């Protein structure tokens, strides 16, 4: 039986104007989620595992050249193209806004990977191998995925669950350990920060380009952006026009209608490269 949980709707906001491409999120994710060591061969075969990666796009030519960075991770789409194609329901959408991968259901058809427009699903072509001593570092909260199955960003669900257990079920304030009255036991942004329940990439990001919270949490940093993004969707669905030149909020590949739970904020560009 599934225990009653407080409803959440998790969401991430990526501010491209803050991102410097430093790779802190990438390594933090690998450390947290037992991602196999990406060897030189993996990169040469284009099979490196990076649940979050920094893509770099050139714009222009020397001397009028720019390089722009964008962190790409599973967008946890509301209309996820990866979900309906899975023949064994190994990937599904839970009601917290997350696209979830059940590893021990996966039979490795890779249909989901083919159907993902963001290329954020990774197939285990090999059994992950760590030297014996390095295995001491593996996170006991996260499954080590075996050969033949698909894996992807989980929004560090193990951290969210730990937060839910400590705050919502046990009723403990993260820093002080004080009891929280039963009526107030809903994990909020402050508790997520203090209790270290934010996804590992968000926690590490030195410029705070990555922000994560419940989309309905008034105290969190993402609500206003999701409200705006949802308003955009609604306007479009009703045939209205969204004036994109005056908003920073957008979703990746908005036009294909996946409704991601990751929202991007546009880079501010005072000296844009003139395009041909």
């Amino acid at each position, binding site marked *: 039986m*599934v*225990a*009653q949980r407080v409803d959440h709707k998790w969401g991430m906001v990526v*501010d*491209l104007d*803050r991102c*410097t*491409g*430093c790779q*802190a999120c990438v*390594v*933090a994710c690998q*450390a947290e989620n037992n991602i196999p*060591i990406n060897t*030189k061969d993996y*990169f040469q075969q*284009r099979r*490196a595992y990076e649940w979050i*990666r920094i*893509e*770099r796009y*050139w*714009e222009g030519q*020397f*001397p*009028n*050249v720019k*390089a*722009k*960075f964008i962190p790409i991770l599973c967008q946890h789409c509301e209309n996820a193209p990866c979900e309906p194609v899975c023949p064994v*329901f190994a990937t*599904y959408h839970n*009601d917290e806004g997350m696209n979830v991968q*059940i*590893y021990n259901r996966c039979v490795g058809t890779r249909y989901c990977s083919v159907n993902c427009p963001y290329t954020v699903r990774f197939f285990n072509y090999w059994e992950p191998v760590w030297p014996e001593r*390095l295995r*001491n*570092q593996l*996170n*006991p*909260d*996260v*499954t080590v995925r075996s050969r033949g199955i698909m894996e992807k960003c989980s929004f560090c*669900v*193990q951290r969210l*669950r730990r937060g839910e257990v400590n705050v919502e079920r046990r009723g403990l304030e993260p820093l002080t350990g004080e009891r929280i009255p039963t009526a107030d036991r809903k994990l909020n942004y402050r508790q997520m920060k203090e209790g*270290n329940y934010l996804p590992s990439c968000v*926690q*590490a990001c*030195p*410029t*705070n380009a990555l922000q994560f919270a419940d989309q309905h949490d008034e105290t969190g940093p993402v609500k206003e952006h999701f409200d705006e993004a949802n308003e955009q969707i609604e306007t479009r669905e009703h045939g209205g026009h969204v004036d994109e*030149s005056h*908003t*920073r909020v957008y979703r990746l590949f908005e036009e294909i209608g996946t409704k991601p739970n990751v929202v991007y904020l546009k*880079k501010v*560009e*005072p*000296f*844009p490269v003139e395009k041909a």
Partner: protein
Amino acid sequence: MKLTRRNFLAWAGIGAVGAVACEGFGIRYGELDIQSPVRLPEDLVRGTDNWYASLCRVCPSCEGIVVRVMEGRAKKVQGNPFFPTNQGKSHARCESGLQALYHPDRIPSPLRRSGPRGSGQFLPVSWQPNGIDSLRSALQARGSSSVMITEPLRGHLGLLASRFASAIGGEQLGFESLDNNTYRAAVKNVFQQDNLPDFDLENSKFILSFGADFLSTWISPTRFNRGYGEFRQGEHRDRGMFYQIDSRFSMTAASADKWLPVRPGWEGHIALSLAQVIVAENLQATGVNVDALVGGAAGTQALNNFRPELVAPMAGLTSEMTGGDPVEFLKNLARSFAKTRPAVAIGGGSAGATDNGLFNLEAIYALNYLVGSVGVEGGVTLNPGSPWDNVPAAGKVGSLADWTRITEQIRSGQTKMLMLHGADPVHGLPESLRLRDAIAQAEDLFVVSFSPFLDDTSAMADLILPDRVYLEDWGDDISEPGPGYQTIGMQQPVVNPLADLDPLSFPDVLLTMAQELGKESQLPWSNFKSMLREGSDALFALNRGSIDAASADDFWNRLLQRGGWWDEKSTGPTKVQAPNGLLRSIAEKASDPEFSGIGIDSDSYYLVPFSHNTLLDGYNGHLPWLQSAPDPLTTVTWQTWVELGDSTAEKLDVKEGDIIRVESSKDSIRAVAYISPAVPPDVVSIPLGQGRQHGSDYATDRPGSESSNVMDILETTQVKGTGSLAWAGTRVRLFKTGESVSISKLEGDTRAEEIGTTPGEEIIKTIKPENH
């Protein structure tokens, strides 16, 4: 069963009750359809974790970390949210401390050389009597002619190492491949400070950076990244403006609003041309005594030699680069910089790494006086000294002049003992210094390494006494640069070494030796922890700062709990009087950059090496997470690449993945070509970090064409006035070898370019500041 009206109603009733019951049992409606009978393992949270505060030691900056420990094993490293410099944030490098801790290639126990020196052949020996006795006898016989080479040391380990060296009559020096001595000298000459300053990027409105890759590797990148994030999109402020003047398109240049490519070594001239415009147009901040700063009429005359009209062509600025007349561009830049306050000018990296590097940096930092940014919010924040009287807040780091002298001493037999800790000078110094040969051929030299990993210098050792990794050991540090006030970081062992490892703490070994050699008067402590505890008691006695404790024991516990101590009221100076005639004296010492060796001809290129984003100078080369973290701009991993501009590639008929031989007057190396649209036509760039010959497979298992050390080809030019290596002062020639490899990078086979030509099509959408 026959379907009757009665049966139908009965079943409908049971169904309704069942549905209500199911809802009541708590199964979430949305998951009923596809709820897995096998739960997502991550849903089940088991075990209790403990978090310990400590210090990151993967790079020279001082960052507070917290380490997650479960069942005696360290599981995760994160930034310490209380620590003032990094405020809970971390660099990619910090995380990889775990891989150092549990590295498969850690040296498990003491080793004694069994083959020819440099062969890397060793046999294990015991600590007692072999290891410790050998060290004691070597110190007794050779201590007075010894040199101890360490990482840059501050705090109590700095005090211990320098006292130990002086007690035995030897010398101790810190080592960095790309040392900051020129930057340090510029800070001393311009601001009269012994401690490196902080930059308040968070509150700045205009950043003008020359050569400093401060978002990637320069000085304190996590702190600067944090400030940069606020500088861009902090609440209750306007977005800041950022110009990067740099001979290489670095990760920092990529984040700038405008990158101005400049010929290497001309940054100081540009800084003075900006100063000239500010002075000539009377744009200085209120209260700035321009006459005193410039040095009267003679100073104005000297500055006039740096008018934009003269400097722009010398620095190689063209109208294509500046989008119009370069002279007007410089004048407008000076005006914006002076009017958008608070503004801050930062200089470092390649700007201080040509023979005239000291002039360049002094000229850059002097700009801060003109715009009134010294000691103010949003500008240069000066740092106070150490809270302890005798504990160094700045590490003494050797310059190329020092390493040349020491190499000569080894060669002549004057230095008879070399002790190494946290430094790999054989890999990190230019090959033409011949340190490797000097050590290999010295007959009467005893080399002891305290490294927990084999590296190129440790491979030359006679004895290796493996140190504990920092997550297993005690320590402290004084933040340099601090956040503007006194800040101490504490390092504590968060786990014990694994059972199959037998390391001994380096400071404890030094203290044991001091006692056995009868040096207790200089080093009276029985172990390093007691030395640190004495330091803690001294802080407690100050009766100020972040820890409010009733007793010294309580203070010590809280110090470890919080990961350090800081006192926001003990700030550095907020007012500094600029030296009289500062700009005149800088202008008078100006010189053009000189490039020895090949010299400047049409077939050669400026070589601008750079510190690797995660591997730095190569000391992290054994850590697989850092090898596999893509370089932000090229996305290359595991390999050494040479960045060529499109025009250079076309001229040489080179495509990506071709092996290029890069040749200076000293030597040549091979590297994989990466062709970039952002490299100037007369420049090539190669990262440091690879090319280790000894040690972990993660650092050494690639052929020389894919993993090479750019230090091998650098000219040994020194920066005038500091003796540091002028590492951006080399010219090279490029040759196609005809070989090619598959490049190991995240980017696909085709160059990833933003192809959206109309708003709405881009992957990375942009917005104009006025619409924001």
